[in-house]
């Protein structure tokens, strides 16, 4: 019998991700070109500001990547647990890692009632998978299969190196954001003194500020788009790993419902961690309605995720020949 596979790649998702990353790259190239163009006027204070922003932005991005596991654990107040302390959790992670042939991350539990999970770390050796007590708790009542689905989703983030990819993707936004601020401050404090040295100090700084603001806004939207695609990719890989797309789907529904029952205070405190979570802790709502909130969201809508899982369910019933 010919070898067959039931795990065909999702080309549509790959194409959408490629386009998003291409646009991000395009914005980056255009940004650099513009800055260089402005610099051709050889403007000392302007060049210094850009350099400082690059060093600060790059440095903070690298530092946040390097310490991402420690920062995230500290922010969530989580504690790494041993197999003796959480045998069930370790048992599931052990098996999933053996199925996927990947290094086992450390496992941590955060003392939060909000049901959620995240994974972070700069590489597979240093990654950590964290679940909240709410996810394991009796109120949510996740079955073993559903919990396994959540963990498989998070392990897929580790396998896809999502922390690294998103750090690189947001580097530009960080630098652009810093430039806006630096340009603004040097305008306030440095502008007056230096005006003798260079006559075009003011307009050049203004242009840098405007360009950076636009770049920041555009790259922010693209990063959010990329984040949503990577969530879908993690859902997909997680569902294929366990072979139970429906269990992952019902876990998504339960976690989303569980979250809406939690008071707002908790949610706002959790907001900075949003990008790492299994399901978003805070949903943007307001005048713009659904479409606007989706553009800014780090996660795809529940309906969209369930729809994609349903496709995978169908796929597992069919086969395509191995290429």
């Amino acid at each position, binding site marked *: 019998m010919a070898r067959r596979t039931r795990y065909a790649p999702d080309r549509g998702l790959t194409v959408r991700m490629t386009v998003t990353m291409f646009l991000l790259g395009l914005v980056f190239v255009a940004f650099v070109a513009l800055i260089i163009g402005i610099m051709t006027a050889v403007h000392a204070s302007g060049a210094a500001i850009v350099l400082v922003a690059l060093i600060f932005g790059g440095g903070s991005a690298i530092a946040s990547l390097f310490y991402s596991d420690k920062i995230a654990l500290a922010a969530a107040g989580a504690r790494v647990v041993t197999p003796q302390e959480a045998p069930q959790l370790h048992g599931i992670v052990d*098996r999933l890692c053996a199925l996927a042939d990947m290094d086992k991350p450390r496992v941590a539990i955060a003392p939060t009632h909000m049901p959620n999970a995240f994974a972070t770390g700069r590489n597979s050796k240093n990654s950590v998978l964290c679940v909240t007590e709410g996810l394991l708790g009796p109120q949510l009542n996740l079955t*073993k299969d559903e919990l396994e689905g959540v963990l498989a989703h998070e392990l897929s983030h580790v396998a896809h190196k999502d922390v690294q990819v998103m750090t690189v993707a947001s580097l530009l936004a960080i630098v652009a954001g810093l430039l806006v601020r630096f340009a603004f401050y040097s305008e306030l404090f440095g502008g007056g003194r230096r005006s003798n040295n260079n006559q075009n100090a003011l307009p050049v700084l203004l242009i840098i500020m405007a360009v950076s603001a636009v770049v920041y806004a555009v790259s922010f939207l693209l990063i959010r788009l990329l984040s949503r695609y990577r969530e879908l990719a993690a859902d997909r890989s997680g569902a294929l790993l366990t072979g139970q797309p429906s269990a992952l789907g019902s876990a998504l529904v339960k976690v989303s419902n569980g979250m809406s029952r939690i008071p707002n205070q908790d949610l706002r405190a959790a907001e900075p961690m949003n990008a790492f979570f299994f399901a978003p802790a805070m949903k943007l709502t307001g005048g713009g309605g659904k479409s606007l909130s989706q553009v800014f969201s780090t996660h795809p809508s529940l309906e969209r995720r369930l729809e994609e899982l349903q496709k995978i369910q169908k796929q597992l019933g069919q086969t395509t020949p191995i290429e």
Partner: protein
Amino acid sequence: MGFLDTLFGRTKPVQPKLDDLFALPSAAITLQAASGFVPTGSGSVCFRGVEGRTFSDIQDEVRDLLNMDSGKPGGGLPVEVSKDTYGFTWLVSSHMSDELDALVTDLHAVNSALVDNGFGPQLLCTLVAFRDSAERRLALVYLYKRGTFYPFAPLSGERRDNALELQTRGVLGDDLKIEQDLTKWFPVWGAPGL
């Protein structure tokens, strides 16, 4: 995983390595000579079932296939199917303790049935049970995705006999590909057939 796969967030499901399993019978002889552990004749295949009709049909086919020989000389007992607390399915095949070749053939039949039907990535591990005269239990666990073995020696109350496991690693180092990364020696408590 390649750079492009990382960029696009695709993980290719890992295909299992099947061939190294056939090194088991000769390794069992070495093990018996060096430490007195004898195969119990039972072994099992552990895999993660996929939801839906397609997979359960294949599972039934495999069971019927293995049961065709049961009762005949060398055919062993009917296959037992059970599900563990983690939702993984175990197919246990039981033979006489000197029929390790037949046992490995049975286990391989399960593997190839799943692989041929496109469910190879669902295979987790294979386990072959041993016992010594003091009734100590030992299992050799084969990890499909890595093509390596590791010893697992459960004691009562979810404890492991690490000394025995390391001793076994030393004995079998030349016969089997032993998993070098000790973090991958995960415990399979309550595995059927052990």
